C-alpha cells in the first residue's frame, strides 16, 4: 500500500512495524538516515538483508548523538557485538527504545545497560563515578564526587551490597517522574 518502494519487501516492513514503535514511513526515513551515515557501505536495496554494520565512530557523529556524553555507551549497548558496530536492525532498535512510545520498563532495562560501564550487570561505585564525571564535565571536586556517589548508592541500594542491581535500579526509576521524558531522543 502507498507508494512503491524497493528498499524493503512488504514482509520486512511488516516485521519492523511489529517489532518497533515506528510506522512504515518512519522506518523508511530511518533507512535514509542510516544510509546517509555511510553511503558507500550501506546499500539502498535491503530486500535480501545484507549484513552491513556501520562502525561506532560514524554513528556517534549523528546530530542526535553528537553532543550526548553517553553516546558511546548508548551505541555499544544496542550493538550485538558489544563494540558499537550497528547493523540496520540495531539502529532501528535503538531509536525505537529511545522513542517516546517505548514503555518505562523497556527503557529502564536499556538505561541500566548504558550506565553499567564495566558490563558486570551491576552499577558499582566506579560506574557511578564515570557517569557523574560525564554529567558534570569533570568539574566537581573528587570529594564531592565521592560524596554524591555514596549518597546515590545509599538511596537506591535495597539489598545492601553497596552496588545497584537491576531490581534496585528499576525500583529507583519507578519513583522518578521525569525518566520517560528525559530518556528520549527525537529523530
Amino acid at each position, binding site marked *: 500500500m502507498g507508494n512503491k518502494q524497493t528498499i524493503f519487501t512488504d514482509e520486512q516492513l511488516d516485521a519492523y512495524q511489529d517489532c518497533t514503535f515506528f510506522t512504515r514511513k518512519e522506518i523508511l526515513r530511518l533507512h535514509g538516515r542510516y544510509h546517509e551515515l555511510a553511503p558507500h557501505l550501506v546499500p539502498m536495496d535491503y530486500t535480501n538483508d545484507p549484513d552491513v554494520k556501520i562502525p561506532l565512530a560514524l554513528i556517534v557523529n549523528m546530530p542526535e548523538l553528537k553532543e550526548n556524553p553517553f553516546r558511546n555507551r548508548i551505541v555499544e549497548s544496542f550493538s550485538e557485538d558489544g563494540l558499537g558496530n550497528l547493523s540496520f536492525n540495531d539502529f532501528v532498535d535503538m531509536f525505537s527504545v529511545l522513542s517516546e512510545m517505548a514503555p518505562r520498563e523497556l527503557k529502564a532495562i536499556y538505561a541500566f545497560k548504558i550506565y553499567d560501564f564495566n558490563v558486570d550487570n551491576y552499577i558499582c561505585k566506579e560506574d557511578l563515578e564515570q557517569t557523574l564525571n560525564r554529567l558534570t564535565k569533570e568539574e566537581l571536586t573528587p570529594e564531592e564526587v565521592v560524596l554524591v556517589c555514596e549518597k546515590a548508592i545509599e538511596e537506591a541500594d535495597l539489598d545492601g551490597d553497596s552496588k545497584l542491581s537491576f531490581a534496585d535500579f528499576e525500583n529507583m526509576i519507578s519513583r522518578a*517522574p521525569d525518566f520517560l521524558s528525559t530518556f528520549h531522543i527525537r529523530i
Partner: protein
Amino acid sequence: MMELREFNNQVHPTPDYPSPYGSQHSLRLRTVPPQETSAVQFDWASPPEDAEDSNEPPNLRELPLHMGLKRAVWQVQQMKIPVVSSSWNIKQSQTFRRFCEVAKHVLSYFVLWKRGIQKIGGHFGGGVQSYFLFLRFLVILNFLSSLLIAGFVLIPSIVFRSMNFNSTIPTTVNLTGVEICLQYDPKPDTLMVFITYFLDLISGTGFMEYSYLFYGYYTNFNSMVESNGFSYNIPLAYLLTAAFYFLFCFICMIIRMGGTARVAVVTGGGATGGYSALVFTGWDHGLQEDRTTKLKQSNFRYRLQVDLEEERLKKKSASLTLSQTVSLYALRVFLNMVVLILIGATFYGIAKATQFSQLMKTTGFKGLVLQYLPSMVITASNFVVPLLCDKIALLEKYSASTTVILALLRAVFLRLVSLGVLLYTLWEQITCEGDISKQNCIPCNYYYDEYKCWETRVGQEMYKLTLFDFLITIATLILVEFPRRIVVDHCSCKLTQWVGRQEFLVAPNVLALVYSQTVVWTGALFCPLLPFINTIKFILFYFCKKITLFQNCQPATRNFRSTTSNFFFLLVLLFGWMLATMVLLYSVTKIHPSYGCGPFRFSPTMWEVVPQAAEMLNSTSAEFLFYMGSQKFSIPLFIFSCVLLCYVSALTSVHGKSVALLKSQCKLEQRDKQFLVRQIEELNATVQKEQREPQQPQRETDTATRWNQHDNYAFDRDEDPRPY
C-alpha cells in the same frame, strides 16, 4: 536445575514442531545465549508464572531482545498463522492495527506546531518545552470555544439582524417607572477623525461599542421568528453557550490534569530519591546543541553543589541554638507581614485607579491613558512586587526548593487577587455596593447614570486588559529583550557580562498565560468575541516567544521540574476558572440586566430566561426539568456524589497501601535472595571441604544437621545444589 532444563526439552520439542507456547519457550532457551540472559538479569529460562500470556503472543515491541532475534520470533509467529479457523480473526486484527497506525500517523499531521515545539525541546530542554505545550493547549481551547460561541450565538445573530427584524417589547413585561432606563444610544458620529478611530479601536468605545464585540449589540429576536415554524431563542442560546463554554473548558482541564496527576502520583511526587534520581534521570538525552549541552553540564554541577550545600545548611540549622531559631522565625513572620502589606497596598492602588478611571470623562489621549489606568497599575504591580518578594526571600533563608514554591505562590496570589479586586471595584460601582435602595440605583437597580449598559462596560474593561497585556509583551520584546541581546553581544564590559543574556524563565511566563486566560473567561459573557481575540493573541505569542527564545535567550541555568510543575500550573488555571465562574454565576443570578441593551433586557435576572423557556416545553419535559432543578433532586445527588467521593478516596488509599506493601516485599525478596545465595556458598564450601576429607563421616552429619537446622525448604536434599 540441569534436570529441569532437560525435562523442559523433552516436553517441549524443537521448533520445527511449532506450538504456541513451546516454540517461543524453546526459542528463548535456544537462541538467547547465557551471557545475554544474565546481562539483563531476566530469567528467560524459567516458565512464566502466570499463564495469561500463553494464549496471546508477547508484545514484540516490548521485548528487550536484539532486533534480529525479534524478527526471528516474528517469523515464527507468522508461520503458525495458517490454522483455518483463526486466520480470519488474526487477519482482521492485523488490518485493524494497520488502520489504527495509519490513522494515528495522519492525525499527527494535524498536531499544531509539532516540529517547532520538538525543536525547542531539543535546544532548550523539557522545561521551556512545557511552556509551549501549555500555550498550545490554551490556543486549541480558545479556538474551539470561539467556534462554539460563533456557531450558537454570533451567526444566528448576524442572520437575524440581516433579515431586518426589529426587536419588540414583549407584552408580559411591566415597564412602568423604568422608562428612563431604556435610553441607550451608543451610535457613533459618522464623521470620525482617524485618531478617534484608533482610540476607539483600542478602548472598545465609539464604533466598537455597538458591535458584535460586546454584549450590548445582541438583542432578543425570539419573538418574531416563530412565524416560519422555526424559533431560535437567542437569549437562551447566549446563556447556555456561556455555560457550556465554561463546562467545556473545565472538562478539558480536568482531563489534562488527570494525565499529569497520574504520572505524579505513580512516582510518589518525586520528592524522594534525590541524588540517585538526579544522576540517572536528570540528563535530558534529547538535547542536541553544543551550547545547550555545555550549559546543562554546568547546570548539573550547580545543582549538585546546591544540594550538597542545602544538606550542610540543614545540618547547621538543626544545630542552631534556641535563641537563634526564635530570632529566625520572628524574622520570617516579620518579612511575611511586609509582603502582605506590599500586596495589600497594591490592591488598594488598583481599587483607587479603577474608581478614578471609571468616573473620569475626558476624551482624547489623556482619556485613553485614564481608561487604561487599571491595566497599567495591575501590570506594573505584577512586575514590581514579585521582584521585591524575591529580594525579601533572600533574607528569609529558606531552602532553595521552598523559596521557589513560595515565590510561585505569592505571584499567583498577587495576579489572581488583583483581578478580583478590579472586579470587586467595578461591582461596587455598578450595583451601588449591593444596595439597590441607594439614591443612584433607584429606578433601574443599577447605577444608571454612569452605566447605561453595564455589561458592555465590564466587557470593555476585560477587552482593555487583554489588549494591554498583549501590547506590553510585544513592547517588552522589542524594547527590552532585543536591545539587551545586542548590548551583551557587542559590548564586552564587565557589567554586561554579569547581566548576561535574557534567560527564559518558565514560571512567570506560564503565570502570565494563566492570568490572560482568566481575564478571557471572566469577560466571555460580556464580550463574546473575546475567546477569538485571545486565540489570535496566543498564536502571535507563540511566534513572538519562539523568535525571542532563539534569538535572545540562553538556556536556563536552573533546572525545572516539569512533571510536578505542569500539574501545579493546571491547578492555578483551575483557580482562575473558579474565579471566573463565581463572577459568571453572580452576574447571571443577582444583578439586574441593563434595560437599554442586550438580549436579557426585559428579564429581572439573566437566569430568568431558562425557566421561561422550560415552561414553553410540553408538560412532561417541563416537569422533568423543574424536578431536576429542585431541592428534591439536588440533595440526593449531592449525597450520592459524597458517597462516590468517599469510595474513590478509599480506593486510592488502598492502592497506596498496596504499593507500599509491594515495595517492602521487593526489599524483603532481595534480602532473601542474598541469604539463600550465602547459604549455597556456605554449603558449597563445606561440600568441597568434605570431598577433600572423605573419611570423616561425622562431618557429613554435621552438614546434614546444619542443613536441616537452617530449614532450607527451597531445596530438595537430593538435588544438585550447584548455584544457578
